[in-house]
């Protein structure tokens, strides 16, 4: 009868699927795999880079796999490493740096040239970026996609409120006075929002040369205590809370969810990653201006922090594979590859030659906003741990705690000091556990 035939067919179908062999790979080349988290338009740029690399390196076959978001890629990498199926190269986000350093799963990149009998000029890379990923002056992972944060603002709304559309606010006090004018003009109900609230808090610390955690921001030894509930942190959060009460600051959720309100003209200012620039310019029907992140008056100068991710090399590869991986890493340092990467994604070129090329060809005069991004990160001091950014093992979790503290304070649920203290208590416990397990 019919039903039995369907059942049999279904069984054959399932069996076929289960027994289908995985696709065969090309023979005769050195095969390396790279797991990354570049989605959307960035994926296309990555694919082009990989294609060009494979074409110019006939003995190598590099396969790049998009393995999900940064956390998903990290998780898959961990699981793969534990089952001995890890890829040769992986992109790990900046908050995963300490995890990767403590993992025992990677080879620091500074060692690789020596292992295969080559030499390499480490000075060709952009310093604030290499500082982030270095320990004791040695680079452990290869810079790849770095961004920082900056201020975006709606020039049209500024004009409507009687503000100079070419003068963005530079301090939080100015944000407040501009904000009051914007609210008075009736153009918006709220003035400013953030993407990545936790990151914005860390930015404020680095920009004012304040340490976020002990042991030199976790760079001279593992961080065991956070310092964000100290006087500076409380001052920052109190400022934001006051702005929230005045309806100037509107909490916009995590990551990129605040972009919608900015693009829809419901807020006039946005603190967000520089990598959002092209998307925002494309998707907004108004003139977009950019400026540096607002500062608190009376505190020293530091630098804005690098965000994004870097490339890590897995341990235990054959020499041929290591050579192939290194060939790819060298390829990424080519000026034209670096420049194309920036133009396609908005991330900084990781080599100085790339920056110079862009300056030389007048790239920035076409769109001043791209220059803001560069100046934001290249114009600060680079010699202190505070200005380089914090490094913590359980960074992902601590960033969540920061965000919760910001939420609770700005919504009036808790006082800024209490919210930060609560987060700091939990963070310290996490740091202690991590240090204990990973020493």
């Amino acid at each position, binding site marked *: 009868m019919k039903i*039995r035939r369907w059942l049999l067919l279904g069984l054959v179908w399932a069996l076929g699927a289960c027994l289908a062999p995985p696709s065969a790979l090309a023979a005769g080349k050195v095969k390396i795999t790279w797991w990354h988290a570049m989605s959307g338009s960035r994926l296309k740029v990555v694919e082009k880079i990989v294609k060009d690399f494979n074409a110019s390196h006939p003995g190598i076959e590099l396969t790049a796999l998009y393995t999900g978001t940064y956390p998903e890629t990290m998780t898959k990498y961990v699981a793969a490493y534990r089952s001995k199926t890890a890829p040769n190269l992986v992109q790990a986000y900046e908050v995963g740096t300490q995890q990767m350093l403590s993992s025992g799963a990677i080879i620091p990149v500074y060692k690789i040239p020596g292992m295969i009998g080559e030499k390499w000029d480490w000075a060709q890379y952009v310093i604030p970026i290499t500082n982030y990923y270095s320990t004791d002056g040695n680079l452990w992972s290869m810079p790849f996609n770095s961004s920082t944060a900056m201020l975006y603002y709606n020039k049209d709304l500024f004009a409507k409120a009687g503000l100079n559309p070419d003068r963005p606010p530079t301090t939080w006090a100015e944000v407040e006075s501009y904000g009051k004018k914007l609210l008075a003009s009736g153009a918006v109900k709220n003035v400013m929002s953030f993407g990545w609230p936790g990151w914005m808090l860390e930015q404020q610390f680095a920009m004012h040369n304040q340490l976020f955690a002990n042991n030199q921001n976790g760079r001279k030894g593992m961080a065991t205590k956070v310092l964000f509930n100290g006087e500076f942190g409380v001052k920052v959060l109190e400022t934001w809370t006051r702005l929230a009460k005045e309806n100037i600051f509107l909490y916009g959720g995590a990551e990129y969810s605040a972009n919608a309100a900015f693009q829809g003209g419901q807020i006039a200012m946005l603190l967000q990653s520089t990598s*959002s620039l092209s998307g925002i310019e494309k998707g907004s029907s108004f003139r977009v201006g950019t400026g540096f992140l607002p500062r608190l008056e009376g505190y020293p100068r530091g630098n804005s922090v690098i965000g994004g991710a870097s490339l890590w090399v897995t341990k235990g590869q054959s020499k041929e594979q290591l050579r192939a991986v290194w060939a790819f890493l060298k390829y990424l340092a080519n000026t034209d590859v670096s420049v194309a990467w920036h133009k396609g994604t908005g991330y900084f070129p990781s080599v100085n030659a790339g920056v110079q090329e862009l300056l030389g060809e007048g790239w920035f005069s076409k769109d001043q906003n791209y220059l803001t991004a560069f100046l934001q990160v290249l114009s600060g001091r680079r010699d202190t741990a505070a200005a380089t950014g914090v490094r913590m093992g359980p960074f992902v979790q601590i960033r969540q705690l920061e965000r919760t503290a910001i939420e609770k304070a700005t919504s009036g649920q808790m006082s800024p000091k209490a919210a930060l203290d609560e987060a700091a208590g939990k963070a310290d416990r996490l740091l202690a556990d991590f240090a204990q397990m990973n020493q």
Partner: protein
Amino acid sequence: MTPRQVKASASHAALIALVVVIAFPVFYALIVSTLTFRQTYVYPPRLYPGTELWNNVVEAWNRIDMGRLFFVTTVISVGAAVVKIVLSLMAAFAYTHFRFRGRALLFPMTMVTQMLPLPVRILPTYELMADFHWVNTYSGLMFPFFASTTGILLFRQFFLTVPRDMPDAARVDGAGPLRYFWDILVPVSRTNIAALFVIEFIFMWSQYLWPLIVTNTADMRVVQIGLKMLIATDQISPAWNVIMAGTIVSMLPPLVVLIAFRKSFAEGIAMQTAK
């Protein structure tokens, strides 16, 4: 009007209202899927359709390679559903037509497995897949789902209502148990099989967490994860028009299955609840 007619009209009115309210979210999604990107961000939000449905569908289809998504998801939904059905039929047959040691463990076993859904064992199951080299394969996607306690209970219930003389007659005719199973019992269970197929197909089509963990590459991705990727558009605001177009297209296969098999589905359920 007679009181009965009044009651009937009132019932109709209430039912229509319910249909509208329940359908509203999807209706709204459908409207949004016909708009342009800018139009989805107008305020006040519009409730009348635009003209971009086809463009949005094509855009969504291409952005996440829906053809491939549909293929993979159909393979695992049909494959796992059928294997579950067959395994459940076999197990239910054993439990109702035979006496053997260990039979008393059936019920506790099925209850316990109901309480061991994926989240309570997700990491070790993933590592198991890695050990079997089944990560990012159809086997990895399907195997953990091959046992269906719902199915075993459903068929067991049904087999208990089978008249006693049916297997007796088969035995007298010289048929062995497998013959009886395949030639008589399975065809008679048609309705329940269809009902279970609907349930399991929809269940597999909706799977999210497991495919998220166990597949790595675009060519093994399932529809639900494709949707997630469509929504998580990183640095730009979500393109609701394209997202909704994609969402609606992804709803269609399970809807079609439910509607096509609705009679068997309803009957199968009715049989289950009858005591």
